């Protein structure tokens, strides 16, 4: 059954290939293969839950000579999240693109994006990570360019060149690592790495490369334009997943492989950048005039929160406290993933309905699209970090970890961030509840509104009340190097 780890990558791959040839049935192919991949991902998660982390040695060569795929608590949870979001967005997209030509071009790339995400989450090899990063980057850029207007193309070009730069810097780090340690396998590397100049520089390069991709302030400049100008389902995937997986690799490298090299000082630096990102991103989101741009900036802020955890995790003592902080980090990442994708999908619905997404002119949408506005409100609750969303728990532990670690100064940041978030979320709702004539039915576009609703409910209810297992999982199999 450990083949699920292959199927989750190869099914969308085959789907993509087939959908190029039989583009007439592309939508169907995409839905089927993504659902299959979703099932595979849940199989992987249950396997990890029952019997702990496991690896799949590709080509039967032991890791080092060959490449190995690894599934552990962190990767399998994120895998399930990404497949859930992708599947929801897939249903959404099957009606979103009205133009048959556009749809035919969308599906192969979309499935390739899925392949890249899954391959990246499961990869256990530095160079393979580089290749998957490139696959991810190129497919994401191509999908962004699908909007095919000037803004989107400019954003795409910028996105591409920045992405290439990022992965090259990462690759430079990989080259140094290979020069020094003669291996590319993460687990093998984790055993031999010591804190020395080479490790520090290589680590620095890889981190820098990935920070560009995860859009940590001040390297976020490319994100808003790209995420705001892409088609709605693409924006959902970009904001919810593509940025996250870069953070995932960072965590993997920091906590599993280069834990000796990561000094509290550097962690503190990253935490500070994260704090600035929280304030700056939220502020920009508050200024934004368009719904999707607002969501993009809020992503910048939400990514910031994840980085604030780092200095805490580094100083907290091993054991429950550290696990708690780590799980909370994971929980916030998950919540944001679901909530933000739901938000973007709903923004897409609004854009289709109003023909624009200018916040100031949303009056009456609460009457016309009750369900969509409800979804936006739900995901807003999650973005602010109010109960019963998962990010409420996340912030709870963020605050308590700050107290435990004696780094109380993060707390004002959280307060300001939350208040700004409240401001920008309820700014939208305020306009949406504003006067407007048309009165619509509760449900207008089932295949677009239902997926968004499901994602939002996961973010607000399930992750808020039902995440107890998550903590056990991380506590038991938190040993993320997979051995």
């Amino acid at each position: 059954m450990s083949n699920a780890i292959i199927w989750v990558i190869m099914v969308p791959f085959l789907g993509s290939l087939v959908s190029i040839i039989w583009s007439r049935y592309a939508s169907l192919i995409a839905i089927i293969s993504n659902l299959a991949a979703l099932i595979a991902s849940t199989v992987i998660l249950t396997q990890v839950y029952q019997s702990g982390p496991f690896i799949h040695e590709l080509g039967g060569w032991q890791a080092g000579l060959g490449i190995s795929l690894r599934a552990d608590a962190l990767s399998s949870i994120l895998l399930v999240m990404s497949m859930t979001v992708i599947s929801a967005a897939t249903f959404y997209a099957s009606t979103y693109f009205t133009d048959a030509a556009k749809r035919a071009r969308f599906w192969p790339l979309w499935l390739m994006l899925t392949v890249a995400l899954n391959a990246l989450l499961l990869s256990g090899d530095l160079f393979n990570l580089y290749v998957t990063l490139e696959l991810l980057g190129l497919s994401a850029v191509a999908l962004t360019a699908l909007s095919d207007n000037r803004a989107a193309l400019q954003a795409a070009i910028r996105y591409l060149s920045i992405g290439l730069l990022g992965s090259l810097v990462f690759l430079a780090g990989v080259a140094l690592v290979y020069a020094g340690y003669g291996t590319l396998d993460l687990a093998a590397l984790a055993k031999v790495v010591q804190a020395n100049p080479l490790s520090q520089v290589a680590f620095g390069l890889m981190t820098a490369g990935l920070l560009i991709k995860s859009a940590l302030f001040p390297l976020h400049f490319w994100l808003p334009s790209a995420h705001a100008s892409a088609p709605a389902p693409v924006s959902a995937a970009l904001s919810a997943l593509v940025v996250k997986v870069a953070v995932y690799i960072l965590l993997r490298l920091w906590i599993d492989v280069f834990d000796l090299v990561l000094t509290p000082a550097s962690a503190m630096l990253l935490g500070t950048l994260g704090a600035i990102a929280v304030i700056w991103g939220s502020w920009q989101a508050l200024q934004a005039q368009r719904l999707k741009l607002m969501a993009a900036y809020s992503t910048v802020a939400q990514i910031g929160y994840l980085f604030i955890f780092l200095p805490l995790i580094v100083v907290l003592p091993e054991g429950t406290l550290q696990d708690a902080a780590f799980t909370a980090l994971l929980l916030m990442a998950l919540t944001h993933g679901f909530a933000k994708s739901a938000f973007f999908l709903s923004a897409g619905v609004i854009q289709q309905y109003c023909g624009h997404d200018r916040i100031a002119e949303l009056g009456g949408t609460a009457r016309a699209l009750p369900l969509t506005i409800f979804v936006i409100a739900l995901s807003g609750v999650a973005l602010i970090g109010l109960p019963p969303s998962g990010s409420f728990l996340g912030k709870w532990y963020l605050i308590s970890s700050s107290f435990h670690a004696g780094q109380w100064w993060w707390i004002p940041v959280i307060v300001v961030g939350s208040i700004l978030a409240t401001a920008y979320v309820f700014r939208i709702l305020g306009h949406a509840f504003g006067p407007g004539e048309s009165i619509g039915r509760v449900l207008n576009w089932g295949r677009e509104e239902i997926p968004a609703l499901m994602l939002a409910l996961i973010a607000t209810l399930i992750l808020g009340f039902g995440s107890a297992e998550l903590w056990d999982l991380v506590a038991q199999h938190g040993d993320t190097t997979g051995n």
Partner: protein
Amino acid sequence: MDFFDNLPLLILLSSLLPGMAIFLVREENHVLRTSLNLFGAVTKLALVGLMIWGVYHEWVSEMRWQIAPGLELVLHADALSVVFVTLSTVLWLVTTIYAIGYLEHSPHRSRFFGFFSLCVTATVGLALAGNLFTFVIFYELLTLATYPLVAHKGTPEAVRGARVYLTYTLGGGVLLLIGVVWLHTIAGPIDFQERGVLSGLTDLDPWTLRWIFLFMIIGLGVKAALFPFHGWLPKAMVAPAPVSALLHAVAVVKAGAFGIIRVVYDVFGVEYAAALGLLPFLGAIAAFTIVYGSVKALSQDHLKRRLAYSTISQVSYIALGTAILGPLATIGGVVHLVHQGVMKITLFFAAGNYAETLGIHHVSEMDGVGKRMPATTLAFSVAALGMIGIPPIAGFISKWYLGLGALQAGAGFWVIPVLVASSLLNAAYFLPILYRAWFKPAVVKWPAEKPQSGRWEMPGALMWPPVITAILALLFGLLAGAPFSPLEWATLIATREY
């Protein structure tokens, strides 16, 4: 007994599920929506009756749900929570009837009643919360559920008022959250417990505790409209009358006051709080707010605004009672939680009726309204006199016990003057209204009169609620000694807390 353990959950669901259902009800489907509303309200009332019985016999009713390590969702029924639950349930029933009449023809009724039920669910959950974590959750949920009610009209000033309300309450929520989390990090999970938890724990740094207390009191004080965090209350007046009634009498303001009682008695323990020297601080704020609110009320011509400021003043009696060490004061504070609710909701119903039938919004327009709307005005008068503290109406009982408590605690020298002053001020801003209403000649034409239909001065759904609550206010005063009266119950609590 299993059933009894699930009782709190059932009480929550009895308003949650109808609320959810109501969202989906089509606008025109008046009958279905109304029956859902009433069904929920009545069921809840019945369940609460059971709970009162159980708690009186000290049956334990508690359910726990593990959220994350060290964080449990706990629903728990004790004497104090029963007071609040009963109050909100009874008044919810009345208000629902009133709201059905009030929103007869306005748009988006389904949305309104949906959030209305959610709002009550949050309030009840807050009352039944068994630990700080649960309390915080419902505290925030209450904010979220009330926002759409305040913004309901969708007019610019409604949205603006709602935004102000939100900024205040969520800001307070964050502070409360910080305080609670901080407490968790030093004392572990805190389950509410009569006579307090922290008093039992040793080796806690008193200054840390004082800071935590400060955070919590500010967080709660925002909803309880303690000075200087009261700013949102007058702005929130843009909401429809039933909402204001609920906000002032039950849901939001009371949630804050109730939270203060919880923190002082069941988290810190009143003796311990006194030992830390926290009570005078709280008392001072409360006393100031009492006087301040009354003074501001004097100068308001807009009726609802005047009532709003009077709320600011009246709710602080509860905080005051909490701040005075000694069972009698406790009784005074807790019982006022109920009495103020009953009286204030009457006043708001009446105000709503004046606006609805005659278009009267200002005190200056009320000349001779007593003859036009006798029943309403009578209810209004009873409640107003009660607020002033005229025996035998409920308000008198509260003030009496507060005064006794102050003397018992030897705090009389500053509490008594405050009580006297505020009573005089209350008289100063209520009696003129009554005078105008009863003795001034009626103006020839009311601002916007609705044609009189039926045998009553207005539709029964609007007229009866204030009358009923007024009668309640009267009874609570007259039959204060009877078993299961608010006073008796408050005494029960006081005995359990000391």
